[in-house]
């Protein structure tokens, strides 16, 4: 657990150094924002769960678009490997360990959660779902 956290922090530090951003830990900030939103939606919420995030990522939904039933339709089954859009464009891996620059731009993360949750689930993802999913990818 500590090792994973260190890895996350290291990667965050690296991305920060390269992007020249000034706020500390954009990923941790975003997770904290999701956590407080999850808590106000559900008072029994305690923490994000990597396992739930993994389920969200791999599960097939019938409520969204027929040709994109799961996150893995585009992102692939293996988070450390590249994915591919229906129009044939390659997508860099979603696992932080494989794409250390990811999840540093909260607006970008939010934009794609909005688009992709609507594609796959036919609705917005909840704050808890976003936090679970992000926690999963940050530890992959």
């Amino acid at each position, binding site marked *: 657990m500590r090792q994973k956290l260190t890895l996350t922090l290291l990667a965050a530090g690296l991305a920060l150094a390269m992007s020249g951003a000034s706020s500390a830990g954009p990923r941790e900030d975003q997770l904290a924002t999701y956590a407080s939103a999850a808590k106000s939606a559900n008072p029994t919420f305690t923490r994000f769960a990597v396992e739930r995030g993994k389920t969200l990522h791999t599960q097939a939904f019938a409520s969204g*678009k027929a040709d994109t039933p799961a996150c893995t339709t585009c992102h692939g089954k293996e988070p450390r490997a*590249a994915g591919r*859009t*229906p*129009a*044939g*464009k*390659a*997508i860099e891996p979603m696992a932080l360990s494989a794409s250390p620059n990811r999840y540093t731009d909260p607006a970008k993360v939010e*934009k794609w959660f*909005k*688009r992709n949750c*609507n*594609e796959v689930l036919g609705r917005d993802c909840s704050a808890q779902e976003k936090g679970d999913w992000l926690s999963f990818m940050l530890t992959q």
Partner: protein
Amino acid sequence: MKITTKIPTRPLVLGLLVLGFSAIVLGRAQAGGGHFYSPVADPVVKEECGSCHLAFAPSMLPASSWKRMMGELKNHFGDDASVDAATAKQITDYLVANAADTGGRRFSEKLLRGVSVASAPQRITELPKWVSEHRKVPDWEWRHKDVRTKANCVACHADAARGYYDE
């Protein structure tokens, strides 16, 4: 043999599967003669219009097409491609300035033949010239798992991201 000298210089991002397929098709694509469409140079346009598919060259559609498309991003071929207003304006300005009937004219004279600019066509792949250039592409190639859609230019034109549609 032209094609053997081309393969090693193709971008790595393509992946090996696509490379194998494009090697079959490109022999023919290369026979077509020179065609260059200046690729998107603006980083914001590349990011916002190049994550789901190739960032299509602005010179492949007239300005009227881009204006209409940018006004309908919430329902973009069934996808939500919307961006905030300031970003949308920046993208629109770039596409309109480099469109087939404005700054990109020198690339696109042939491609716009028979196109009514007023009709603001939304698909490059439905322009009469595009259709006729691709009429010899057989059905199985469009359905190939590495192609799947006509909009996947890169599957056959390995250098499309750099603006080349022949060699």
